């Protein structure tokens, strides 16, 4: 300390509280924003292109569900010091935990393929080749996680997530009907068609992704948050989930105002970006493309990290971003394996990417309900949660969310199996 040092005066109260809040921010923001991955953006784009503003209320409900369960996940991690799969194993034994882990790993590899496919699509929008871009992205993400410290990784990922503002701008550029959008947001109506049920279920499933549920809990453990940070962590979760919903809103609105009014159908987010250009200008297209690329990069780091955390929790191995490779081999090897596998699949010419992505969405939807039920059971377990066990009011909230998700999954199954005729 310099001899000229004078003690800094007392930190203002508001500044101290803001300092505490900023230090806690991370799990909710990253888990929430990474939900707006290419699969999510595609789902929201299709939602807007096919149904206009009508199904915006589904996004609102999904966001509320996200707030409820991400808050629970963060709390479980902070209170127990363990991730979701670890708690499942401790409470339910090795058989159920193995099934949950196997499902998560398979779904996460598929999801990571979707992220790298999104990187490839985003790069190709700007005329860049995937054969260069995808390996560079894979190496870059791996190097960040392998070499970076916890705070550096967190800050870089949060910096990447600022690209989401591009969707907000492209939404404005599309010139939407704000009155209709607000109406669609608060008035729940829906055509009773197979397409509508599929899109509604996909929206719920992509917002409340299984890997996101396990990530936020594991990341809160790795961030070493204390129970006294829980109040501020709620703000983090609320902010992240709300931003997710807001970004989704503007994606839907951008597509509703342009593609839906012209009757243009799309298959993926890259289609949406291309289709926006003649309708809302080249800037809207570029912004959409930048958003897609940023979303894919963020999720391409988060999803393999979530997988690595889950594997380590199952085996009881060390899993911390601050650990060196030698101290956390299982963690880094799992991260690398998922990343490399997904990147290679995307680069294989003629790889059945659409089938992989569809199956991944189905697997995520199938996994979601059991995971929510397992989380509900843990939340109510006084031995594991101690004084932070779920209250009756919270339990009602969790159950209501589970019922809504179950309804969507059941409806989809009934329509898919033909037990209920499609309209």
């Amino acid at each position: 300390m310099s001899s000229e040092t004078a003690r800094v005066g007392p930190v203002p109260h508001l500044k101290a509280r803001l300092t505490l809040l900023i230090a806690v921010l991370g799990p909710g923001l990253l888990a929430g924003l990474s939900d707006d991955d290419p699969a999510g953006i595609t789902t929201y784009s299709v939602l807007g292109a096919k149904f206009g503003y009508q199904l915006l209320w589904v996004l609102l409900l999904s966001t509320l569900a996200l707030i409820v369960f991400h808050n629970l996940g963060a709390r479980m991690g902070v209170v127990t010091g363990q991730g979701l799969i670890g708690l499942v194993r401790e409470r339910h034994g090795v058989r159920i935990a193995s099934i949950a882990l196997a499902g998560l790993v398979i779904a996460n590899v598929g999801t990571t393929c979707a992220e790298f496919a999104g990187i490839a699509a985003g790069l190709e929008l700007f005329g860049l080749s995937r054969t260069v871009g995808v390996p560079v992205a894979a190496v870059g993400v791996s190097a960040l996680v392998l070499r970076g410290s916890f705070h550096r990784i967190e800050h870089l990922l949060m910096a990447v997530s600022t690209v989401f503002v591009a969707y907000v701008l492209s939404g404005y550029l599309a010139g939407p009907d704000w009155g209709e959008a607000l109406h669609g947001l608060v008035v729940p109506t829906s055509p009773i068609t197979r397409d509508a049920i599929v899109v509604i279920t996909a929206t719920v499933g992509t917002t409340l992704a299984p890997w996101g549920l396990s990530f936020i809990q594991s990341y809160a453990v790795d961030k070493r948050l204390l129970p006294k940070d829980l109040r501020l962590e709620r703000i983090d979760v609320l902010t992240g989930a709300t931003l997710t919903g807001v970004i989704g809103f503007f994606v839907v609105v951008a597509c509703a105002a342009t593609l839906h009014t012209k009757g243009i159908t799309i298959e993926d987010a890259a289609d949406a970006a291309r289709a926006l250009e003649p309708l809302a200008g080249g800037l809207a297209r570029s912004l959409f493309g930048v958003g897609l690329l940023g979303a894919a990069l963020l999720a391409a780091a988060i999803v393999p990290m979530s997988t690595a955390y889950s594997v380590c929790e199952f085996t009881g191995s060390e899993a911390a971003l601050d650990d060196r490779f030698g101290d956390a081999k299982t963690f880094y090897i799992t991260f690398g394996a998922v990343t490399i596998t997904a990147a290679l699949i995307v680069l294989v010419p003629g790889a059945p990417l659409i089938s992989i992505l569809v199956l991944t969405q189905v697997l995520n939807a199938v996994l979601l309900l059991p995971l929510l039920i397992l989380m509900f059971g843990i939340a109510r377990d006084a031995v594991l949660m101690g004084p932070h066990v779920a209250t009756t009011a919270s339990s009602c909230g969790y159950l209501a969310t589970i019922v809504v998700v179950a309804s969507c999954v059941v409806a989809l199954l009934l329509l898919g199996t033909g037990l209920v005729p499609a309209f």
Partner: protein
Amino acid sequence: MTVLSEEVGTPVTTSGGVVVGKVLDLTVRLDRDLPTVERVAVGRRRVTHLVPWVCFAGFGDEEARISDVHLSDEWSVTPPDVRLAPHELLLARDVLDAQVIDVRGRHSARVGDVVLAHTEIGTLEVVAVEVGLTPVVRRLGFGAIARRLPMRALPWADLHLRSARGHLVQLAMTTATVHRLDDAGLAHLLATVTASHAVDVIHAVGPERVGAALRHLPSAEAGRLLNHLEPDHTERVLAQLSGADAARFRGAVERPPAGAHRRFRRTAGWRHRPRSPSSATTEATP
């Protein structure tokens, strides 16, 4: 030698061959060098009894045989509310699949199985826990594959349990692992467990030992732990330290806890530049 997963589910029969239930769990008492099985949880049709070990005429080889005793109502318990003695815990509930810390090797693991040994005097002792993938593979029903995989066991004496009851019961024993740790080992343990468990450990080992252990931790981590203690306990710990160490940790305690263990502004190191000669400041970075 046997393992817990092979004993759980074993039918419990009388000497006449009448099945009275099956083994659900084993309780062990920890107030010995090696925990010994105290009671056996026997379950049948939603009724569970904690049968004293001495009532068993034979145990193992796919059968547990009790002497001709009536399953007394005194032994009846209603899971999950199972009343145990202060030194007692349930192996399947509190140890199996729980996280443990190998304090000698200084790493975490998850218990895949519990290794038990019959003694010459007819007791059943816990000698080690099995970790890694081998017990998982075996318990999933792939015994033939598991037999080809290496076994990795951690001696019971080197373990600290992280399950809720296991942690507390171990700490209550004078023979607890934490009392045999050196300063560096204790520091590793404190940094690995949750903050609330660390507080329990700190209370168990006392301020002198904690002070010595904290010297092996970065200031931010020590501050995190001290911030979780009640103020008078924090002072007692700090009172054990030399002037320089005490000042270092006191500074960490007085910083906002959530900001102390992570640098949240990359520019923090060079944010404070002298604005004028009269207000020159330098931030004390961790």
